[in-house]
């Protein structure tokens, strides 16, 4: 074994092992919900920008620690419904919507829609009151009925 190789082996033997491997395996195991968590994190960050808030302000409004908010926006938080509900109220946004069998999500790339905005539309509405989510503006031309 060469001098340098031996030196590297000695340095490595003394050092603690990296936790990188476990983190890779953890992300692989939880891949499905991590994607959703990331989407939520992205929406929270968008909302903070829109409101002109920083993470500390959100933490204060939520009554949680700044570290907790940092976890929210990292996109690795397994959110409780209670937390999502509170975030929705504090930020004034919709983060989670349960679709019923007669509803679908449509996305339109128009100026009236914010980028990535999706709206839930009723497939066969009997009356306007059945729409679950109102559009952000009063323009109803984007309602789609089958």
């Amino acid at each position, binding site marked *: 074994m*060469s*001098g*340098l190789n031996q030196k590297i082996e000695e*340095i*490595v033997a003394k050092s603690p092992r990296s936790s990188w491997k476990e*983190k890779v395996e953890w*992300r692989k195991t939880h891949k499905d919900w991590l*994607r959703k968590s990331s989407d939520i994190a992205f929406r929270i960050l968008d909302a903070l920008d829109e409101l002109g808030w920083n993470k500390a302000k959100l933490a204060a409004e939520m009554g949680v620690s700044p570290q907790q908010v940092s976890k929210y926006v*990292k996109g690795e938080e397994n959110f409780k419904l209670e937390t999502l509900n509170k975030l929705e109220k504090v930020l004034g946004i919709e983060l989670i919507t349960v679709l019923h069998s007669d509803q679908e999500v449509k996305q339109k790339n128009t100026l009236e829609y914010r980028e990535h905005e999706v709206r839930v539309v009723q497939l066969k509405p009997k009356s306007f009151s059945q729409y679950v989510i109102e559009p952000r503006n009063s323009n109803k031309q984007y309602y789609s009925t089958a």
Partner: protein
Amino acid sequence: MEIVRTFELPNTKLLAVKYEGYEFDALEILQGQWGSTEFLREFFTKYKKDHYAKYGSSKLNNLVQQAKELADDFFELLLELAEDVESSALVDFFKPLDNRELQSETYDLQKLKGREEERKSYLRIYAIRYKEKIIVTGGAIKLTDKMEDRPHTNDELKKLELVKSFLDTNDLDVTFSYIDVK
């Protein structure tokens, strides 16, 4: 500076540098950054023109998700390669940093880059190879041709130099191959 292993001994094929004053090693830092929606959103907001120039138009949310998926795949592949103690696949995966070099040529203490080739990923993991060992010094999202073009990629060059110097001083008999980046 410390060099930490990613697997239990005796597997020391994939190592990572832990810099002075840092809580995490280079691979853990990369994992933290490339797994973070906040980090990626900020990064692609800052460098959206670089991304556009190389890859065309893309929505920010899609960019973030894509980068996360690429990073997960990249790390999983790296893990798989490093897990196989017998094979030389890990070393083969890393290519010489200087594109002018023939990829079949390898040198001890060569500065290398690992790249997820199939989807032309912009993710880079930088490392120094010494015989069958890969020592990860850092990594970056590289959206420009030259590493010197942007501060965050230029920093990675400095890290490579730093680690190379650190290793040099420990064995003066070793012959290095030093490669420029164009």
